[in-house]
């Protein structure tokens, strides 16, 4: 097991871009974890004069916004929100996607038909509008945003899982498992799923990046949780001052960009490392 992990790490590290992404991501996670120590007080508290430019004051290295809140503190706490929503939304999407895809492919017939039509239905609804609708119905809370993002992003995972299961379902080892008296669920999740997992993990890691963007968009439009600091919300708040104090939008914008870039690079790296066909490139 350890040898496998080392082998995996070696393959992952061979991809330079993935390594850079990984370092960036670790930095963002580090900031998110360290936020309560770096900024012990509520980040939404007004601390000073509004619109101090970055690097102008040593107390507020990234400046203050239009209300005089510390941008650095909001970025640090925003990292927590963003990563948490990204991770949980991706987890939700993966759970839904794997269940739907696995059931559809394994049982086939009308189950497949029904679940795939449902998947297509979800695909036809414009994602952002769907998220906004769910959030405005359920309420502006961080859990609901997470669920909403999860609900709109599971479809590609379901289709991928289905495709993987289809090719694995008729393999001889599945037949052998049946001949040993294993039940359907046991075979699906104990035997087939581990085989189907690598590409699904890659897709899930890319869904995190998508979820981060969704969360930012929702917060930008003012539908995020008002009690939580978030990058999207910071951009939204700063947009009225974009002609004069453009840094209020630019700083969280850069944070979003770097995080999403890091997640995508890591996702690609995982793909290279987990995909046996690309292994010996």
């Amino acid at each position: 097991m350890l040898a496998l992990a080392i082998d995996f790490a070696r393959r992952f590290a061979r991809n330079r871009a993935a390594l850079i992404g990984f370092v960036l991501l670790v930095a963002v996670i580090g900031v998110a974890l360290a936020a309560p120590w770096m900024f012990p007080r509520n980040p939404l508290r007004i601390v000073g004069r509004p619109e101090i430019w970055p690097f102008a004051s040593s107390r507020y290295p990234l400046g203050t916004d239009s209300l005089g809140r510390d941008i650095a503190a909001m970025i640090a706490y925003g990292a927590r929100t963003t990563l948490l929503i990204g991770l949980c939304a991706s987890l939700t999407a993966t759970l839904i996607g794997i269940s739907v895809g696995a059931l559809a492919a394994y049982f086939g017939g009308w189950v497949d038909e029904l679940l795939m039509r449902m998947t297509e239905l979800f695909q036809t609804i414009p994602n952002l509008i769907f998220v906004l609708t769910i959030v405005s119905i359920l309420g502006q809370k961080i859990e609901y945003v997470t669920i909403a993002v999860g609900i709109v992003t599971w479809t590609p995972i379901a289709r991928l899982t289905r495709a993987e299961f289809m090719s694995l379902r008729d393999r001889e080892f599945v037949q052998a498992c049946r001949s040993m008296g294993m039940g359907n669920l046991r075979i699906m999740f104990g035997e087939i799923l581990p085989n189907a997992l690598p590409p699904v993990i890659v897709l899930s890691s890319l869904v995190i990046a998508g979820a981060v963007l969704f969360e930012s968009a929702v917060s930008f439009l003012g539908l995020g949780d008002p009690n939580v600091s978030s990058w999207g919300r910071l951009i939204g708040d700063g947009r009225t001052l974009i002609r004069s104090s453009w840094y209020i939008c630019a700083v969280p914008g850069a944070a979003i960009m770097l995080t999403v870039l890091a997640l995508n690079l890591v996702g690609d790296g995982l793909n290279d490392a987990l995909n046996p066909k690309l292994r010996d490139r």
Partner: protein
Amino acid sequence: MAADPVPERTPILAIDNLQVSLFTRRGVLPAVDGLSLSVAPGETVAIVGESGCGKSLAALAVMRLLPEPPARIVGGAVRFMGRDLAALSEREMQRVRGKDISMIFQDPMTSLDPVLTVGDQLIEAIRQHTEASWREAANRAVELLRQVRIPDAERRLDDYPHQMSGGMSQRVMIAMAIACGPQLLIADEPTTALDVTVQAQILELLKELQTRSGMGLIIITHDLGVVAETADRVVVMYAGRKVEEARVGALFDRPLHPYTRGLLGATPSAIRRRGGRLAEIAGSVPALSDLPAGCAFQNRCPDVFDRCRAERPALATLLPQQSAACFAAEKELSRNVAAIGT
């Protein structure tokens, strides 16, 4: 002794007039048509025939693992220890599979889950039907690997299937199949994917395990060499039907059905004079979708005559413990009997 090929002991498995059909767009095709078969404790029955003759489907029908659709059992009964398997619920059937009846498959390299270790899979197979703890199951797994002659068993538990050779994998499959002490083992072409020396070892292992446990064994094969080495009784199938059944010695000494004779003629043998061409059976198996009226073998049969084209021969007991479905053989034998009579 009775002139019936049914063995004297009570059978473990009794297949009676089993019919499996394939429901395809081109119509309903009779893939297994009225197969009857019984296996006694400790007995080895070989089912022989070329690809597509329905031998594997018959085995899957016994396990209730037919690919549905398109295949479905449309008639007959399968009794295991007197219990009708068709009447069991899927859940009850799951308890039979792997515990009472096990199966091993043709290609051992693809029959093991590639992402789980051999140990995990063996332990899973053991725990499927017993209450054993993980620890106990692991110990039993090592014991099983020793039984199937895998050297260094403890260390092999942590191996992945791709780290093993074909022969080793098939041994693991056999270990999994016998894990819960089944009364019947169905081996579907167990040695086809292996090379010849390994093949002999695997067959020997199967025989040895059978002698030790007294389980019934069904070996499905197209290789008469395998039959000669292992079987007590042989069932020859052609286009979904049983065309001949006999004890193994009788079948090799005096095949009744022309198809069986053809198979024997097409098998290379060390005893036969070298240099001669192997006899082949002319033509090919008719498609299930257009089986001729009369005997399915008529277009390839050297002994074909008018009656074969009009009427389908039924299986008849022609010699003690030997039956065949062939008019030509019937005619031939009755002529001999008449000759002796005069």
